[in-house]
C-alpha cells in the first residue's frame, strides 16, 4: 500500500479504477459525481487511456457496451437521473453477459429531484432497473477508502462472473474527503475468450449479442445466467457486523446511513440498550443469511435509509417477517441524525410503533 492521500470519494473511485486497469471511461457530467469525470479527464490522456464526454448518458453506456465486448475494463458514472437514462444499455450489457462498472452517486428524486444525497435508487439498482430478468452486483461503500477498495473489487467480480457491477454511493460519499491508501499492486486480468478481438483467421468468430431468435435458446440462456447468479449469492455476499452478537435491536443500514447508525448504536449501548448493526457491503446479493441469523436473537430490526423505505422489504423477506422492522428515514437530500436513529432504536426496543 502507498502513502496516504486526502481524496474526495469521487476522486478515489476514479484513481482506483485507473489502478484496476480501467483505461476507458465514458460519461456525462452531473452533480454530485462530476469530480469523477473531471479526474478522468485530467488523468486518462496522461496514461494513454480514453476519456470521452459523450453527448448523453445513453451514448455513454452504449460506448461502455462496445468496449466491454472488446474485452477491456471499462466504466461509466453518473447520478440518479443519469443512471435512469442508462438503464436500457445496462439491460443490454447484462443480456450480453458482459462485465462493466457503473457508478451511481445518488441524489434526491424522483425526477430531477435535487443535488443533495439520497439512497432512493435502491430498488433500481437491486431489482433490475432496466427490462428483463437480470441482476447487477451492487456494492455500497461507506467510506472514501471503501470507494477505492470496492471499485477494484467491482471490476474483478464483473470480469469473473461476466456481469455488470454497480457502485451504489450517495452524494455525501462522493463529496466528502478522507485519507485513502491506494493499491500499489498491478491489476490482475483474466482471459476473456469470448471477447471480440479479431480472429486472425485462427478461430471461429465470437458473437456478443442479447437477441435470441429461438425462444428455447433465450430461456436456456436465462436459466444458465441465473445459475451464475446463484454462485454470486453463495460466494460474494459481503457485510459488516457491529455488536450484533447479543443485540436486541438490529439496525440495518448501508453507506452514509450506516455511518450515522454506528454512532447511534454506540450511544444506545451507553444508555443500556443492546443495539447492533448489520451493514450490507453488497445489497445484491443481499446478506440474507446474516439477517435471518439476527432474526433468531433480535427482537426487532430498524432499517435506516435515505429513501421512503426500500431496503426494508429485503429485510422483511430475509427475516421471513418473523420480527417487526421499523423504518428510520429522511429523504429529499436530508440525512437522518444519530439522535433520530437512536429514537427509532428506542422505539424498537420498547416494542411500540
Amino acid at each position, binding site marked *: 500500500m502507498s502513502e496516504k492521500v486526502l481524496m474526495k470519494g469521487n476522486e478515489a473511485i476514479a484513481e482506483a479504477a485507473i489502478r484496476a486497469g480501467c483505461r476507458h471511461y465514458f460519461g456525462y457530467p452531473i452533480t454530485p459525481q462530476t469530480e469523477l469525470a473531471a479526474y478522468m479527464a485530467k488523468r486518462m490522456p496522461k496514461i494513454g487511456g480514453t476519456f470521452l464526454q459523450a453527448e448523453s448518458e445513453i451514448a455513454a453506456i452504449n460506448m461502455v457496451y462496445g468496449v466491454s465486448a472488446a474485452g477491456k475494463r471499462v466504466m461509466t458514472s453518473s447520478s440518479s437521473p443519469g443512471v435512469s437514462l442508462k438503464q436500457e444499455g445496462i439491460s443490454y450489457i447484462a443480456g450480453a453477459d458482459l462485465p462493466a462498472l457503473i457508478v451511481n452517486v445518488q441524489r*434526491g428524486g424522483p425526477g430531477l*429531484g435535487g443535488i443533495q444525497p439520497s439512497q432512493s435508487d435502491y430498488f433500481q439498482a437491486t431489482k433490475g432497473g432496466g427490462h428483463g430478468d437480470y441482476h447487477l452486483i451492487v456494492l455500497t461503500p461507506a467510506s472514501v477508502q471503501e470507494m477505492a477498495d470496492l471499485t477494484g473489487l467491482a471490476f474483478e467480480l464483473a470480469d469473473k462472473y461476466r456481469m455488470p457491477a454497480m457502485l451504489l454511493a450517495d452524494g455525501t460519499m462522493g463529496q466528502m*474527503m478522507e485519507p485513502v491508501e491506494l493499491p500499489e499492486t498491478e491489476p490482475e486480468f483474466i482471459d476473456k475468450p469470448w471477447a471480440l478481438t479479431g480472429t486472425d483467421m485462427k478461430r471461429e468468430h465470437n458473437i456478443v449479442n442479447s437477441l435470441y431468435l429461438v425462444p428455447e435458446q433465450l430461456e436456456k440462456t436465462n436459466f444458465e445466467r441465473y445459475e451464475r447468479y446463484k454462485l454470486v449469492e453463495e460466494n460474494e455476499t459481503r457485510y459488516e457486523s457491529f455488536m450484533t452478537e447479543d443485540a436486541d435491536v438490529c439496525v440495518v443500514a448501508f453507506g452514509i446511513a450506516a455511518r450515522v447508525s454506528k454512532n447511534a448504536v454506540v450511544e444506545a449501548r451507553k444508555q443500556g440498550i443492546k443495539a447492533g448493526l448489520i451493514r450490507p457491503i453488497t445489497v445484491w446479493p443481499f446478506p440474507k443469511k446474516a439477517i435471518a441469523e439476527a432474526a433468531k436473537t433480535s427482537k426487532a430490526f430498524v432499517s435506516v435509509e435515505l429513501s421512503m423505505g426500500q431496503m426494508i422489504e429485503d429485510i422483511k423477506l430475509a427475516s421471513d417477517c418473523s420480527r417487526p422492522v421499523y423504518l428510520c428515514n429522511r429523504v429529499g437530500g436530508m440525512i437522518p441524525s444519530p439522535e433520530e436513529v437512536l429514537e427509532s432504536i428506542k422505539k424498537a426496543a420498547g416494542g411500540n410503533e
Partner: protein
Amino acid sequence: MLNFKRVTLFCGHYGSGKTNVAVNYAMRMKEAGADVRIADMDIVNPYFRTKDSEEELREKGIELISPRFANSNVDLPALPQELYGVFQVKSKYAVLDIGGDDRGAYALGRFSGMILEENDYDCFFVANFFRPLTREAKEAYEVMKEIETAGRVPFTGIVNNSNLGELTTPEDVCGTFKKADELAEISGLPVVMTTVMQSIANAFDGENVMPITLQKKYY
C-alpha cells in the same frame, strides 16, 4: 499575520481546504477588532460550503454573503448581487472564499479590475500537499498558475494547509514544510502561515502556525 489587507482572497486546488481556512481567518480578523465580512464565491462545489458555518459566523457577528441557492437542491452556479458591495464599500474588511482550481477562479476574474485598482488585497494560495494532484511543489505551482490566469489576481502568499482531515498528525504537517518552502522558491512568494487543527496546534510552539477549527459533521 495581523497586517490585514482590506480584501483577503483564498484560492487553491479543489479540496485544499480554502473554506475552513477562510472561515477561521475571518474569525481571527474579527477577534483582532476588524469589521469583517466573508463572501462565498464558490460556484463549483455543491456540498461542504461556507454556509455550513453560518451559525458560528452569525454568533461572532460576521456577515456571510453566499449564493442564494448554496446548500439547496438547486444546482445554479450564480453569484449573489450583494457581492458588489464587498468591492464598493471600502470601509469594511472582506474575506473571499474562491472556488477550487481555475474553474472556480473564473468567478473571481469578474472582479479583478476592482481589486487591482483598489490595490489593498492579499491573495493567498492554499496548498495541501496530501491532495493527489498537488503532491509536489511543482504540481502545486502549475495549479497556482492556472488559477492566476483564470482569476486575474496575482498571488501574494502561500498558506500551507497540508492535512489528512481529522487524522492529521503533527509529523504529517512537518513533513510538508520542505515542499512549502520549495513552492515559495519556485513562485517567489512567502509562506505566510501554516494552518493546523486546533487539537494538534500545541506541537508547533513558536512557529508561524494558525490553529483552525473544522466544520462539524456527524457521520
